[in-house]
């Protein structure tokens, strides 16, 4: 094999790396089929432990009333339920609201106040943990966010798994519940089907859970005590660190997909960007912190399995794979355009098949979200990527149509123009992230000029249908890499909530 041919093969491998995250992602969807048989229901049993609910709150007056009222409607014995709201030095109406709720539900709602706040969620949680663990009333602890609204049967569905003493923690299916919600809420709604209803079922099958959702994590008292009764305060990923530490100590973490809770998510890209950069930076920190765990199988946990490492790293490194894939295509184009064309087609046919499978299954798994978000499901990769996938799958009819249209318009493309179009699509594999970043900047700029919540600001954000929500998430991950490399300050930026969340069916 000549040196040029060797280089071409290496470049083809680079190109096909772009398909790896999608193939690994699709394999998670296949694992969902096993969840009917590999689950924790055999060891679940009716179990109603005395449960303390811990709610961190900083200026949450708009959301707390609904969430507390809904907690008091839980189908769970009232004498076995206590709600502790830790008010992190709120400056809004939160203290007055909590005083009213404590009076309305005496013995059930407790107001804990931190006079000096603003240190972040984990410090607020630790304040509550100190109080709750000080006596032995609590047998299980539910940590939630102030905006989360619980379905009446959700808590007892979660606690039934704690009947098995091997279980350390249980998490629920968090669904996007903003009402009326924006286009972005519908994208997030669909994303949560893939990231929770699908991915966490697959993690149940693997026996390794990546993260207990911050809005719904139920711990046994034994687990909390084994963790030292504290939540990690050194990173932006305290939920993931709690999850990993639970599993590393040999306790099981269970996802209960039939326990449904609703959360309000950002309605505009700017809010989403802040929230997700924090999450993505947290994932980078977790990757470094647990470097001794990856790919080291253990008898006490499954976090060290190769399959879990594949899931974790293909998601974390997705932006890098996209850049390598795009670079490979462009270099190949200048070396041998026929090989570049074949590699491009192979990449996108593979992506198209994964997209068809994962989108179809996600829509089937959660029909209520499918009814609300089917357009966003179809446009998740973005209109341009969808067009590329359709073209690579059925090139002839699309080619004929394009020829007909250009002939009818009297447009005749030169060879140079053809090359330009080809290079655009080859670059798109990674440039879609840049385009998504530009949409974010545009929404910010329009929002700053005309008001964040104006129709014009929302309209500019809707360019994400063309660019893709997936590329937006990749751009956010890429930003997180840069912030971590630069050692940017860890700032806990609160996601703005409006209280427009409620139960949906």
């Amino acid at each position: 094999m000549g040196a040029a041919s060797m280089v071409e093969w290496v470049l083809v491998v680079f190109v096909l790396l772009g398909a790896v995250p999608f193939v690994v992602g699709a394999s998670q969807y296949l694992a969902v089929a096993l969840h009917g048989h590999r689950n924790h229901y055999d060891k679940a049993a009716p179990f109603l432990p005395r449960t303390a609910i811990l709610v961190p709150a900083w200026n949450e007056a708009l959301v707390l009333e609904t969430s507390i009222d809904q907690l008091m409607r839980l189908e769970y014995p009232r004498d076995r339920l206590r709600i502790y709201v830790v008010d992190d030095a709120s400056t809004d109406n939160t203290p007055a609201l909590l005083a009213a709720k404590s009076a309305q539900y005496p013995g059930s709602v407790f107001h804990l106040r931190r006079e000096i706040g603003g240190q972040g969620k984990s410090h607020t949680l630790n304040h509550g943990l100190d109080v709750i663990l000080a006596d032995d009333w609590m047998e299980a602890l539910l940590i939630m966010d102030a905006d989360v609204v619980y379905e009446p049967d959700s808590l007892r569905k979660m606690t039934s798994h704690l009947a098995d003493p091997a279980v350390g923690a249980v998490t629920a299916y968090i669904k996007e519940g903003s009402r009326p919600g924006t286009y972005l809420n519908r994208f997030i709604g669909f994303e949560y089907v893939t990231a929770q209803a699908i991915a966490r079922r697959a993690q149940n099958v693997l026996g390794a859970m990546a993260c207990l959702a911050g809005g719904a994590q139920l711990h046994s008292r034994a687990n909390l005590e084994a963790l030292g009764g504290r939540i990690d305060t050194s990173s932006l990923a305290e939920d993931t660190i709690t999850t990993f530490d639970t599993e590393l100590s040999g306790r099981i973490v269970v996802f209960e997909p039939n326990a449904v809770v609703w959360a309000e998510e950002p309605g505009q890209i700017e809010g989403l960007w802040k929230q997700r950069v924090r999450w993505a930076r947290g994932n980078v920190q977790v990757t470094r912190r647990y470097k001794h765990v990856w790919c080291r199988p253990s008898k006490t946990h499954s976090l060290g399995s190769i399959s879990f490492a594949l899931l974790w790293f293909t998601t974390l490194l997705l932006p890098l794979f996209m850049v390598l894939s795009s670079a490979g295509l462009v270099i190949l184009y200048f070396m041998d355009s026929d090989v570049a064309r074949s590699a491009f087609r192979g990449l996108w046919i593979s992506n198209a098949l994964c997209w068809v499978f994962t989108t179809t299954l996600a829509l089937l798994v959660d029909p209520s979200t499918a009814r609300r978000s089917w357009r966003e499901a179809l446009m998740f990769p973005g209109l341009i990527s969808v067009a590329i996938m359709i073209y690579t799958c059925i090139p002839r009819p699309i080619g004929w149509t394009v020829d007909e249209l250009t002939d009818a318009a009297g447009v005749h493309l030169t060879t140079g123009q053809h090359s330009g179009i080809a290079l655009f699509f080859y670059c798109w594999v990674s440039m879609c992230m840049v385009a998504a970043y530009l949409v974010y900047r545009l929404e910010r700029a329009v929002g700053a000029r005309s008001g964040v919540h104006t129709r014009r600001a929302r309209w500019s954000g809707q360019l994400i249908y063309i660019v893709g929500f997936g590329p937006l998430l990749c751009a956010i991950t890429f930003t997180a890499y840069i912030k971590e490399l630069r050692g940017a300050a860890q700032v806990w930026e609160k996601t703005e909530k409006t209280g427009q969340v409620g139960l949906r069916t």
Partner: protein
Amino acid sequence: MSMSDDEFAMITREIEASRANERRLVGKVLLALAVVAVVIIVRWRWAA
């Protein structure tokens, strides 16, 4: 922990319903794979 027989029976039924719900996922996965098969057939037919 005190729990009435009715409560116990109801929660047991809920667990069973959840388990049955999860078993139905096999059919959904097969349906999604069937859609992929259709796409492959269409692709193959148009490419021929």
